[in-house]
C-alpha cells in the first residue's frame, strides 16, 4: 500500500509499504478514506519531537471503513462500519480510562518502559507519533491497523460526509477541550493565540460554550479572516501591540481566559526578541521549545485567570516567568486531548447543525501528493489552513 513515511527532518516520502496485519484480538484494519495533516505533524516534520525513526508512518487524523476485525472486538465493530479513529489509543479498562482521562491511558503505550523513564509515568499510545508514545503507524496511508479497536473508534452515523466528521479524531475535540478546561463564564473574554486549525476550532468552541468576547491573535491575514468569520475580534501581532489591544478590548483588565494554540514553534521575529534567543538556544540544543506565547499569556492574563495549553510542547522550555504566574494566581491546564470524552457531545452538535468543522479545509489532494502538501502547509502557501488527503 501507499503511505506517507518519515525519513528525517523535512523528509516525508510517499512510500510503498507492506499492508498492516491484525496482530492482537482487539485489532481492526480500516481502509482509510480521508486523513489530514495536523499542525503537530509539522513538529515531527521539523524533527522537534524526539524519538522518531526513519520508516515511521505519519498521520493521526484519519477515518475510514472497517475491512477486518480481530476476534476480540466482540461485535463492537463489523466490516463495513465507517469510523473516525481518535489519535489517542485507549484500552477503556485501566483506571485512567475509567476516569475518562483517555490521553493518559495506562495500557496502550507499547513503549511504556521508555515513557515511564521520560515522562515519569506513561501516557497513552498515539498514532503516527514519536516512539515515546508507542510508535504506532499512522493513518496517512491506504490502510491502518487500529489497536484496541473495540474502544478506539467513533462510529459515524449515516448521512454525514467524511469532511463533517474527520476532525472529531483530533482538532475539534482539541479546540473544544481547550475551551472547556477554561471554565467559561458568560462574562469572560477568551484570548486565543494561533489561528491554525486548532485555534479555529477553539474559537468556534468558545462561541458554542457562550464566551462573551473572543479575541484571536495571529499574523496571517487569511487565518485572521477565518477567525473573524467565526466571531472573533482579531489582532495581527505583526502590525499591532498585543498587550495594548488586549487592554483596550478588556477595559485594561486583560482576558480572563488565555489559550495557547501554538505550542513549541512560536513564530520567530525581531519584534519578539525572546523568540530569537529561544531559536538560537534551540539550534545549539540548549532548549527544546520556544515558549513565547506561554510567556505572553502569563503576562497579559487577568489575575485569577486560566491558561489553557492545547499546543504541543516537546521538552524543556526556558525563562518561564514563574513569579508572574504564581503572584497572579493563574491556573494552568494542559494535556493531549481526551478525545472520546467529548466526541458524543460534539457529534450531536454536528448533527444538529450547530457546527460544521469542514469550514477549515482549504486544500484537498490525493495521498500521493502528501509530501508536496506538507511543504505547502508548512510554508503556509496558497493561503493554506488545513489539508485533507484522500486515498
Amino acid at each position, binding site marked *: 500500500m501507499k503511505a506517507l*513515511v518519515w525519513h528525517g527532518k523535512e523528509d516525508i516520502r510517499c512510500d510503498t509499504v507492506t499492508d*498492516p496485519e491484525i496482530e492482537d484480538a482487539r485489532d481492526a484494519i480500516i481502509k482509510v478514506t480521508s486523513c489530514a495533516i495536523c499542525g503537530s505533524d509539522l513538529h515531527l516534520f521539523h524533527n522537534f519531537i524526539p524519538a522518531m525513526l526513519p520508516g515511521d508512518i505519519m498521520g493521526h487524523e484519519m477515518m475510514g471503513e472497517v475491512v477486518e476485525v480481530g476476534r476480540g472486538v466482540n461485535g463492537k465493530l463489523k466490516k463495513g462500519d465507517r469510523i473516525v479513529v481518535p489519535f489517542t489509543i485507549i484500552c477503556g479498562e485501566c483506571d485512567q480510562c475509567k476516569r475518562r482521562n483517555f490521553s493518559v491511558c495506562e495500557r496502550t503505550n507499547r513503549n511504556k518502559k521508555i515513557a515511564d523513564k521520560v515522562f515519569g509515568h506513561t501516557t497513552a499510545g498515539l498514532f503516527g507519533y514519536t516512539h515515546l508514545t508507542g510508535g504506532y503507524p499512522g493513518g496517512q496511508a491506504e490502510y491502518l491497523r487500529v489497536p484496541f479497536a473495540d474502544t478506539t473508534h467513533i462510529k459515524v452515523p449515516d448521512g454525514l460526509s467524511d469532511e463533517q466528521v474527520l476532525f472529531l479524531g483530533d482538532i475539534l475535540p482539541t479546540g473544544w477541550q481547550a475551551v472547556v478546561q477554561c471554565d467559561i463564564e458568560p462574562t469572560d473574554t477568551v484570548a486565543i493565540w494561533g489561528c491554525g486549525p486548532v485555534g479555529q476550532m477553539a474559537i468556534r468552541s468558545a462561541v458554542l460554550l457562550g464566551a462573551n468576547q473572543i479575541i484571536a491573535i495571529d499574523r496571517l491575514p487569511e487565518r485572521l479572516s477565518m477567525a473573524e468569520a467565526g*466571531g472573533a475580534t482579531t489582532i495581527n501581532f505583526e502590525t499591532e501591540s498585543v498587550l495594548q489591544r488586549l487592554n483596550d478590548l478588556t477595559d485594561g483588565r486583560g482576558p480572563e481566559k488565555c489559550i495557547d494554540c501554538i505550542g513549541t514553534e512560536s513564530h520567530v521575529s525581531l519584534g519578539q526578541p525572546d523568540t530569537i534567543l529561544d531559536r538560537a538556544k534551540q539550534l545549539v540544543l540548549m532548549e527544546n521549545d520556544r515558549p513565547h506565547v506561554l510567556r505572553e499569556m502569563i503576562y497579559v492574563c487577568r489575575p485569577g485567570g486560566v491558561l489553557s495549553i492545547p499546543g504541543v510542547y516537546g521538552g524543556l522550555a526556558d525563562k518561564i516567568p514563574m513569579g508572574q504566574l504564581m503572584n497572579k494566581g493563574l491556573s494552568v491546564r494542559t494535556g493531549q486531548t481526551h478525545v472520546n470524552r467529548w466526541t458524543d457531545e460534539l457529534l450531536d452538535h454536528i448533527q444538529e447543525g450547530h457546527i460544521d468543522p469542514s469550514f477549515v479545509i482549504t486544500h484537498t489532494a490525493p495521498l500521493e501528493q502528501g509530501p508536496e502538501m506538507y511543504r505547502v502547509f508548512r510554508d503556509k502557501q496558497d493561503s493554506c*489552513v488545513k489539508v485533507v488527503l484522500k486515498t
Partner: protein
Amino acid sequence: MMFAKIMNVTRSKGDPKVVRTGPSSITASDRIARNLGWFSLALGALEILSPRRITHALGMEGEEWLVRAYGFREIAAGVLSLSTDKKIGLWSRVAGDGLDMATLVGGLHYDNPKKDNVAVALLIVGGITLLDMATAEEVTARHARQTGRRRMYYERSGFPNGSTASKGVAVRNTAVPQLRG
C-alpha cells in the same frame, strides 16, 4: 531508504514496513542547502582547529585569529543551513563569501610568494559564492509564503445555522473532571 529498511526490525509483526521509497518533500535546492551546510561545518572546523595551515598556504601568516573567527562564522552558517531556517543560513553564507573574498584580495600583492594560491582560492570562493546565491534564491522562492493564490475566508463561519443560533448552545456546567473524580 537504507535507514528506513534497517528500522523495519524495530516494528511489530502487524506494522507496515517500507518496501520501496517514493517522492520526497525535500526539493533539489533543499538537498544542496544541506550539502552546503555540511561543507560549512567541515570548513569551519578546519579553520578553528588548523588556522596556521590555511594562512601558511595563502602566505598570510599572522592572520590566524581572523581565520579562526571565520571558522566560528562558518559553523554558525552551517548549523543554520542544516536547520529549518536554512534560508537565513544560506544568505549568511553569501555574506560570509563576501568577507572571505575581501580578505583574500588583501593577500593578492606582489610580495606574497603564495599569491598564486590566493588567486586559486579566490576562484574557488567565487564559484561557491555563485552556488550559494543560486541556492539561497531558489530556497527563498521555494518556501515563500506569498506563492499561490491569496484568499480570504470571511464567509467560513463554521456555523450552518448562523453564529447567533450557535452562540451558547453548549453552555452547561463545565466543571473540569478531576483526576480523582
